[in-house]
């Protein structure tokens, strides 16, 4: 009987959380057509990157030397580049790198940012002061300059671009998390939990982190877009993803010289990049509206 209850409890619990999730999705879709389209687009990009080998008609690094700089046509729907590589295939595979860069940069800077922010915000005092000054110091250096150093220090490679972006982005997360931590630390439910006798760890893990979700998710979505742009800018300055990897940023980086004679080399990767970043930015905005109780509850 008791076991039955447990089972029943688990199922019900799952159902409720699932139900909540579904209900939230439904509400989001209803209230936020732009955000929904953005999510759709992002899912599409993810799908494309996962299925790249199936979707791409050619090997993205294969040089087809018989057809160099051919404009869009039947065989190469988006044309070929200066080494005869299929632009469409490169864009398809390029989504992998852009997503990888964006995703890794965001996830790691989020983890570090949460760590520093939580430590800084919960404990306060000298620790807070030191962590905050270090974060301030990092933020005071223009991010591209910082990334330039780091990329030069570590040598050009995708992982180094990611490391550079993580260092640049971490303080932003840390700052937001710290603010949230300060807010949550003072909330009544944290006080309630303390009055029960909960440990610091428990309070941070069970109460603080789950409740700082909204601003972090919003920032993450915006940071995702910014990371993709930053990767492109680094590539433009010559310290981004190394060739022949088909990154959108790399494809754009030296494309300016093709603008007049082979515009497809510039237009399509640019479009892919801008749309993808746009989708992440719009999603961030939509989530901000959706998750911000100050705006959404005033209905």
């Amino acid at each position, binding site marked *: 009987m008791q076991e039955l209850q447990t089972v029943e409890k688990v199922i019900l619990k799952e159902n409720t959380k699932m139900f909540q999730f579904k209900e939230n999705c439904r509400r989001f879709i209803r209230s936020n057509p732009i955000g929904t389209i953005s999510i759709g687009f992002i899912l599409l990009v993810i799908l494309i990157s996962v299925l790249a080998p199936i979707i791409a008609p050619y090997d993205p*690094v294969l*040089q087809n*030397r018989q057809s*160099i*700089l*051919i*404009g869009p046509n039947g065989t190469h729907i988006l044309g070929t580049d*200066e*080494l*005869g590589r299929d632009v469409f295939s490169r864009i398809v595979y390029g989504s992998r790198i852009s997503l990888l860069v964006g995703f890794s940069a965001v996830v790691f800077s989020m983890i570090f940012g949460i760590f520093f922010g939580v430590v800084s915000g919960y404990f306060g005092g000298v620790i807070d002061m030191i962590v905050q000054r270090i974060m301030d110091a990092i933020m005071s250096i223009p991010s591209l300059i910082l990334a330039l150093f780091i*990329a*030069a220090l570590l*040598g*050009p*490679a995708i992982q180094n671009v990611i490391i550079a972006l993580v260092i640049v982005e971490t303080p932003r997360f840390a700052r937001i998390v710290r603010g949230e931590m300060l807010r949550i630390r003072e909330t009544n439910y944290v006080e309630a939990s303390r009055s029960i006798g909960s440990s610091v760890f428990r309070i941070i893990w069970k109460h603080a982190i789950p409740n700082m979700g909204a601003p972090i998710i919003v920032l993450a979505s915006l940071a995702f877009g910014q990371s993709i742009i930053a990767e492109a800018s680094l590539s433009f300055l*010559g*310290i981004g993803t*190394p*060739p*022949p990897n088909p990154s959108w940023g790399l494809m754009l980086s*030296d494309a*300016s*010289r*093709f*603008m*007049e*004679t*082979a*515009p*497809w080399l510039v*237009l399509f990767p*640019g*479009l892919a990049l*801008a749309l993808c970043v746009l989708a992440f930015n719009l999603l961030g905005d939509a989530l901000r509206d959706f998750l911000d109780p100050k705006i959404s509850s005033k209905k």
Partner: protein
Amino acid sequence: MLILILFVLAACESGSNEPASKSESSNKTGEEGTPKEGGTLSFYDFDDPKTLDPHKSIASATNSRIGLVYNKLVTFATGPDNFSSDEIVPDLAKDWEISEDGKTYTFHLRDDVKWQNIAPVNGRAFTSEDVIATMERIKNLPGPQANSLVSVESIEAPDDYTVIFNLSEPYAPLLNQLASFVMWILPKEATEGKVDLDNTAIGTGPFILESWKRGVEASFKKNPDYFEEGKPYLDGVTIYPNGDSMTEVNAFRTGQTDVILTDSKIDFETLKKSVPDAQIQSEIVTASRLFINQTRKPLDNILVRQAMSKAIDREGAWKSIYGNGEYNGYVMPTLEDWALPLDERKEYQEYDPEGAKELLAEAGFPDGFEVSMIVTDGYGPQLVTLAEWVAEDLKEIGIKVNIEVLEYGTFFSERWPSKEYDIGIGLVTPVTDPSDSLDPFFKSDGYRNWQGVNDPKLDEMIKQQYLIVDRDERIKYINEIERYLFENVTNHVNLFAYHIHHFKQPYVKGFDPHSNYGYLFMKNVWLDK
């Protein structure tokens, strides 16, 4: 924004994709007419100089700018069709004699030359003292110039207008090297530290450095006291450091610059289309190469290196990337007579992937191996594209290449000199004497022998050629060295020499470039407008 992009797309609907014309120069500056005075010539050059001190930098950036200000003892002839001429003509020295044994060079200097009227030199007359002071400075500073003077035992000045170089043994390239850009003559005061050579220049040349704003422009004005009567014709010259290639094209198209240089096939086509009446001159200036670190295995195996050489489709590469080019040897074709005949160069470097595979198998690597390749984007995007091309070619014969695109500083000062690389793609510096191509790179103690070539026989051969004073005989011997390099060293692997295209606005006259840095011809340039 999208509309904008579409608009651009429409506006530049692609034209022809055929490679650039193979001819060395089309539309050559033929009949010149009577020179007109006045006007300022502006153009983009390579990188901004890091320093203006000629003895601290062999970079083209430095020497091309200060070449307008300084003179040498002797120089190369310039003019139409003289792009890579090695004909020595007078500059500060009006004539010279070489002793029979080739050990004494006597230069008779012009007596009508004045330094530019700038403190602390203040327009005093140029004398043999200046030459001696300059030569002393060269000997005491690091740099390839010093190598040219190794065999010079002493320099004397019997009077103000005579300078005698005493050599310990014959040194064939001396005149060539004195004519080269590394041998600008400075005022004595400058060698004594009274002039900030890093940031200014006071010479005897046709133009005075008016201002050099780092990263912005170097502007020059006419030297009214220049010793050649009536020259220069231009009132001034403005040189901008290189920008994004599109920026340069835009500037030329909108008439803000009068001349543009490019090595890119794409830019060539764009320019041809957008400035149809421009004069175009295409010349071989530089070459690319694949250098191999033969202190590492399996690159120490000559069969492997030869396989790599055979694996590369040079012709395809230059056609696709540069539009134009030619097979290169260890002495560049810019040195015309000195270079190995084209047929022979081609024969050594025929594209033969099958043969390459066989060589590789013979070397014990039938399945290939993996290497990393360094390259820098500091020379522009073409070189990186070339690296990708070479990597693909090597992949064909089973050598998997991982490209590392390095930032220029890392590439140039860290990875390459300290031999921290497997293979690399780089450029060949154009030189004026074949020994400059051989000595630094292939002698076991060559100062730029960063690929670990160590061949006693080769060392001996390189030493030997310095002693051959007779031109034809020396050419033959140098050809022998080249063949030896192709057959027994194969490091670096030459890729190819390619064209740089000069586009000149229709009104630019007398702009007849020479491969040696320094715009030796600028005094002859005039604007027909």
